[in-house]
């Protein structure tokens, strides 16, 4: 099967802090991968890296055939990210938010309405500014705006957090549908039962690396100090 995500010794820094300290990860197309790990393990950073929103500071990586070093711009439109921040406009109404992102993605108004229905957002909320919705309702709207874009890779950061039983069900249906249509899903979740229900595989992330690999023997010795630029001598002598 084609590989949707391929990471080797990936390092990614938030400011000066190496949130990912050498991640090896393979995800096949159509898989639903559950990321688990304690707070601060680097789950959110990993998802942002896979979305092409964070820079790869060391190691190598390919997502959906796009190189994370050089080709992030081609990657981004194929990815949908549901983050802690909703990535929506608080002052716009539910429908306006959805229509805007649907239009940018080339989807129709009917599709955005259908997406809202699938996430069981009550029609009476359609014209309410996002600011006035509850956390759970916003999350559903954010998930709907993801669905409208029909990404090839779904990256869900705590999709179940703050949702009630029916909301979790709706999100899981959405995930299964997407995987059924051939999309790949990576989700990070602490809500073990709800997430395990859909996941086809689980990976544990600890201290910025995938648990199970010995931290003392980095996988790729040649590039094991990836955060640093290549030694200055080589860099300048050919200039």
């Amino acid at each position: 099967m084609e590989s949707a995500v391929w990471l080797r010794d990936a390092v990614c820094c938030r400011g000066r802090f190496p949130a990912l300290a050498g991640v090896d990860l393979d995800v096949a197309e159509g898989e639903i991968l559950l990321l688990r790990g304690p707070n601060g393990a680097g789950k959110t950073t990993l998802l942002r890296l896979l979305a092409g929103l964070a820079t790869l500071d060391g190691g190598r990586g390919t997502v959906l055939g796009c190189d994370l070093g050089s080709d992030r711009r081609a990657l981004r439109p194929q990815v949908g990210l549901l983050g802690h921040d909703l990535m929506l406009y608080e002052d716009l109404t539910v429908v306006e938010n959805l229509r805007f992102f649907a239009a940018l993605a080339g989807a129709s108004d009917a599709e955005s309405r259908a997406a809202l229905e699938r996430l069981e957002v009550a029609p009476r909320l359609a014209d309410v500014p996002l600011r006035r919705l509850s956390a759970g309702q916003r999350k559903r709207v954010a998930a709907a705006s993801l669905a409208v874009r029909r990404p090839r890779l779904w990256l869900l950061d705590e999709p179940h957090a703050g949702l009630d039983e029916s909301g979790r069900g709706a999100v899981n249906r959405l995930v299964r549908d997407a995987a059924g249509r051939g999309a790949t899903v990576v989700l990070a979740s602490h809500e073990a039962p709800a997430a395990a229900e859909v996941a086809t595989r689980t990976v544990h992330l600890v201290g910025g690396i995938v648990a199970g690999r010995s931290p003392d023997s980095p996988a790729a010795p040649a590039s094991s100090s990836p955060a640093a630029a290549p030694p200055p001598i080589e860099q300048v002598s050919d200039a």
Partner: protein
Amino acid sequence: MSILLGRPPGDRPPSAAPGHTGSRATRILGVATLVGLVGLCLCAFIFSPPDSRPGPEPGSRIGQFDAVRLMYVHFPAAIWTYSALGLCALASGVYLWRRGVWWDRLAHASAEIGVLLCAVTLLTGMIWGRPIWNTWWEWGDVRVVTTLVLFLTYAGYLALRSVPAAPEARARRSAILGVGGAVLIPIVNRSVEWWENRTLHQQSTLEELRIEDLTLFTLVLGIAVMGVFFLWILIHRFRLAWLEAEVESAGLEAALAERRAEAGEVAATGAGAGGTGEGGSAP
């Protein structure tokens, strides 16, 4: 290019590296600056004549008299201000195009020195203007006003650089600002020129002073000395930027090692609790 970093270490033992940013090239430039400075002082204060010529009325003399001696600092500083900030814009542009940290550091070093020289230019210009134009600040002069805007623009550039950020993001933002400054300056110059379309400045300093040979020679010498000084301080500043980046990335490597150690600890202590089984213990 390699002059900024010196020659490759070859087979010399690394322990021979002294703890400063000097090298043979900078020592030569440093000595040349000092020798040139002595020569410049001699020419500027002793050999060169004051600016003085017959005035319209018989027997009267006009000119800048000894104040022209300020020009031997002001003019070279102005020339190298424009060169340094031009170099900053150029290096910024190349950075955006080719993406080498080398260019980012060159832009940083030249901007900092350029702003310093710009301050020198403005200050000496004001001190010269007080006796000659009878004012510290002349709004009606294009170059004066343009240079001040230039100063503010690149002072902003340095302000942006001083904000802590991820190195690559900072480099990219700074580069755009560096290029933006170069885009802005011609427009400012044009607009100020129209704004006050008479100008007080020497149309060209070199023409207006009825230049004695020695005055011209001293001006050229001043430019040369300032140029050697510029190169000397640029090399030092560039190497300092290099060191700063090295210290930063050394910190990063340490943090990376620490992070991996943390992962090892958790894996060792939490092997049972963390669970390898699917849907195991809830968090």
